[in-house]
């Protein structure tokens, strides 16, 4: 049994295309605004696609706004799990305690399972995984969460996934060493360097013909 067919993804605003399904991108930066801007461009679903987003530091309303700023109408094609604010209808669920990875994992699995009832290609993202790392006592639980929930769901759904890490955050361990480890579990890496107000350069690797540097503004 396969839960999804072969598919590829494009990100028009970043001039990226032919990204195959089951691609996992580790997105890193020490500039939170730049991280958010690029994250939503990668994860926002164009027409005929859908998204699942775990937002650790934004409520449902602002997450929807960021999605539709990236791709018009993407908010209506996205299921959101947020750690801020109340539930808002069927497409925004919230969790009270970010360190409760048992509940967070089940909720996230549930959103993926519901999305898989629809054959539309799926994008998924976590913004910010570094916040979860900072909240949880034992990093092994975060790795289990990534393995069990995020990376497994990408594999089964042949989805495009983005896991964002704020490298300026306190994650309770050496951030360079942790990212070097994380990088080996993801198929691609995009590191964002801020170059000015609402401007940045992306260093892209692991995305074949999209590799190299890309200048973006927002």
């Amino acid at each position, binding site marked *: *049994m396969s839960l999804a067919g072969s598919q590829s993804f494009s990100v028009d605003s970043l001039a990226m295309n032919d990204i195959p399904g089951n691609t996992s991108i580790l997105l890193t930066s020490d500039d939170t605004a730049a991280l958010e801007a690029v994250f939503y461009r990668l994860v926002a679903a164009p027409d005929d696609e859908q998204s699942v987003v775990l937002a650790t530091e934004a409520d449902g309303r602002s997450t929807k706004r960021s999605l539709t700023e990236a791709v018009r109408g993407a908010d209506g094609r996205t299921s959101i799990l947020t750690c801020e604010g109340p539930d808002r209808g069927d497409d925004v669920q919230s969790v009270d305690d970010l360190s409760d990875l048992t509940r967070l994992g089940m*909720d996230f*699995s549930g959103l993926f399972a519901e999305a898989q009832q629809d054959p539309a290609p799926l994008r998924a993202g976590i913004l910010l995984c570094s916040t979860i790392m900072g909240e949880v006592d034992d*990093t*092994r639980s975060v*790795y289990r969460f990534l393995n*069990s929930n995020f990376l*497994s769901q990408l594999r089964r759904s042949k989805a495009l996934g983005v896991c964002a890490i704020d490298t300026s955050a306190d994650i309770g361990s050496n951030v360079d060493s942790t990212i*070097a*480890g994380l990088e080996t579990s993801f198929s691609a890496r995009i590191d964002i360097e801020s170059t000015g107000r609402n401007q940045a350069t992306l260093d892209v690797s692991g995305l074949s013909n999209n590799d190299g540097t890309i200048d973006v503004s927002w």
Partner: protein
Amino acid sequence: MRYMGTRTVLCVDTGKGVEEMAGAIQDEDGLEPVTATSIAEAAEQLDSQSVDCVVTEYDLADGTGLDIVEHLRSDDPQTPVVLFTDVSPAEIDTASFEEMIVEYLNKGLPDAYDRLGFIVDDVITHSAQVGFLVPDNEGSRLDALEQYDVDELPIEESFSRLTDLIADRFDVAVAFIGLIEKDVENFLACTGSDWDSLTREDTICTHSMLQEDVMVVEDINEDSRFANNDTLQNLGIVSYAGANMTNKDDEVIGQVCVIDHERRSYSADERHSLQQFASTAMEILELRQSLRNARNTEVEA
């Protein structure tokens, strides 16, 4: 695919539910269900046999499915669990189980029973609930490791002499050479202690092997990857430095490491030395294996 044998799946539910659950598992090639209808029965099964995965209902007569997960995690933290239930996550009491990751599958979804076998096969095949990062090249890395007949090679004395030298060079409590298998790290030589093997997610080496350079942890109590790791604490480990054993195809198969019971740092020269020791260990292993291969070829001829 590396995992070719039949995989045993413990199915836990009450009444007719366990039969339907076991039926869905049976329908997937390579999966063999065993059943239990309570937490007590499930605990007996887990204590008496090795299982590759557990599928459990949440509501059980003598507790919840998360009690089974707790029982399992204490002895076998890497065995995956699928919570297969129509109880929604919001109704599940996670207060006592905040960092216990399970796969959640809503039994009420239209294709839930069709999906169950596929998911169980997937979580076993991909070791999907391990508490460590699995490198993208794990398959080829394990294939590379399989090329060494470690149990048949006369390497113990050579490696023991080498770890003696390493411990002396760095003036540390423990020096060891370990190979990192799929689920465990096996220690081939260990000066200063008698470690045999450790579950992989409990080791620092499973992190160190992902770094290009020598990895140093000056004090594990200051690093959330290790500070709450009871195994490391019970072994008295405070500081760590590890260097990769990398074969000619660039696959990391093991580590050469030094451990101390107190905080310490390592200079650039010391890191370089440790990497040289790791390269020497790799050369010894390669040479011994080459000799064995040559002898086997002669015998066959």
